[in-house]
């Protein structure tokens, strides 16, 4: 009988979770012999070429924004002070022309992505604009070492819950899934090409949501949270959109440029 209070306590603790439940679902379970690598457990095939669709913030992404134009970003006064002193020629001369192409900034640029598996637990994301390479590490990978433009990225699959019997089935389940990526250890860079800074202590969290369209398209939304108490008053949340392309015929590498 001594077990009763404990069981009740567990039930009470679990109740709010159950109260949130609107449908009946079960967690993803794995059989003992299931393959364990990130590549094998990927809920969808994310490899291939993806093109960014610049339908949002066009004036701040497709072209160089004017000096002093920081619209939509919750900057601190310190960030404004630093950005007001932006000098692209100085960046070029110092070999820092890739400041706007770091992990916290590059995903909003007009570009194409080439996504492939570097190995069974490392997803490689290359950009044609700026010719950058992001390595998204699954499993027990530990980063460290010198900070870099693309930092240290740790990735996990956010597996969708299995729906219970009777629930409506997914329409294109094979195209869906979420990839969570957390990046630290970045070199200080720019959120935008006109010098809006992020610091070396910034943290980048991304949710890569893959969706199937009604006409057979594949879409990717990268929900992005940049946290940087030095230069941001609140986390900066954006969501650049991409569409899968059939091949790499439009892949067009170009180096980092600080001035345009």
């Amino acid at each position, binding site marked *: 009988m001594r077990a009763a209070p404990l069981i009740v306590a567990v*039930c009470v603790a679990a109740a709010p979770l159950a109260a949130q*439940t609107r449908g009946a679902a079960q967690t993803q379970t794995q059989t003992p012999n299931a393959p364990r690598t990130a590549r094998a457990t990927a809920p969808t095939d994310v490899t291939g070429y993806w093109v960014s669709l610049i339908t949002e913030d066009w004036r701040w992404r497709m072209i160089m924004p*004017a000096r002093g134009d920081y619209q939509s970003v919750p900057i601190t006064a310190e960030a404004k002070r630093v950005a007001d002193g932006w000098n692209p020629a100085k960046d070029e001369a110092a070999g820092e022309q890739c400041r706007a192409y770091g992990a916290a900034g590059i995903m909003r640029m007009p570009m194409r992505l080439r996504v492939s598996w570097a190995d069974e637990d490392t997803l490689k994301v290359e950009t044609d604009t700026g010719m950058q390479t992001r390595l998204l590490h699954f499993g027990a990978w530990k980063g460290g070492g010198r900070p870099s433009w693309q930092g240290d990225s740790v990735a996990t699959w956010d597996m969708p819950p299995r*729906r219970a019997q009777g629930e409506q089935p997914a329409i294109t389940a094979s195209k869906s899934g979420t990839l969570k990526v957390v990046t630290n250890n970045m070199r200080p860079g720019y959120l935008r090409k006109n010098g809006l800074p992020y610091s070396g202590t910034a943290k980048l969290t991304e949710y890569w*949501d893959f969706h199937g369209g009604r006409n057979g398209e594949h879409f990717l939304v990268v929900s992005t949270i940049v946290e940087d108490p030095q230069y941001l008053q609140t986390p900066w949340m954006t969501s650049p959109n991409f569409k899968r392309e059939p091949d790499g015929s439009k892949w067009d590498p170009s180096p980092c440029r600080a001035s345009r």
Partner: protein
Amino acid sequence: MAKTILLVFSVLAVSVPALAQIDLAGHWAARQHEDWEERGPGPEVVDYLGLPINEDARARALAYSTSAFSLPERQCLYFAPHYNVIGPFGLEIWADTDPNSGRIVSWNIGAFIDKAINAIWMDGRPHPGPNDLRTFSGFTTGRWEGNTLVAYTTHYKEGYLRRNGVPTSDQASMTTYITRHGDMLTVLEVIEDPVYLTEPFLVSRNYQLDPAANMTRVPAPCVPEAELPELKGEGRVPHYLPGRNPFVNEMTQRYNLPVEAVLGGADTMYPEFKKNLDSYQPPALCVRYCCGWGAMVAGRTAPNVDCITGGSGKINEQ
């Protein structure tokens, strides 16, 4: 003791599925960290950048005058359902359940002052026929695709893709992908329109769970009245005749952008369009809406920063 532990773990095992559930209900505050100017103060009068519109859409948009909203008969019209994310507001989402089965009948997205409630029917009911009634909210069905609620909306009245008159027709449809990541909600809209768009238009936004957001489910009452003296009486509908829109070159003058870009089209949303802008030189300095990322806080849209937050070029002007 071993039995106790076993029993506790049994209870936990039964409870675990709740962790995998996705509850969308709550007040989701908009974080206007994208398109702040478009969603807040409003877009430039002629700004079709990044919109995959065709010639017909462009012609209608250029004929549009913002003053048309001042006509009493238009003041209380609602925006189309895609205004859920194109507009500035947060989202209140709740579920209606069948009292007998407990199953969800619909997920609902609350109204704004200028948008109707959107019900996403989850019970498998079919969409209306092709010639059936169009309403402001349209008709939406939904289903789960992995951890995303996928909703498909048809049968809504013609509306605006951008608040400067870029139109959508009553043949438009919208697929909405709603994905929850902890306390963040990501909503992607894919809008298709055989009348005015040459390709699907994608727009996505993020929201944060905020119990203090105090959004309302139903729209506030709207009472029309004549706002402009010249629009009192009957017979005048503000518009611009073809070739007479005086704002066509405004963005070119203000931002040095070529008018071909300003007038939009599908090519303006792809990276290769940058090659048309190789000679582009930005203005020397930002002079308008240089900061801002949310609703007014103590009268400022960029709190704690001395910046030009309004359209007049004055520091912290509101």
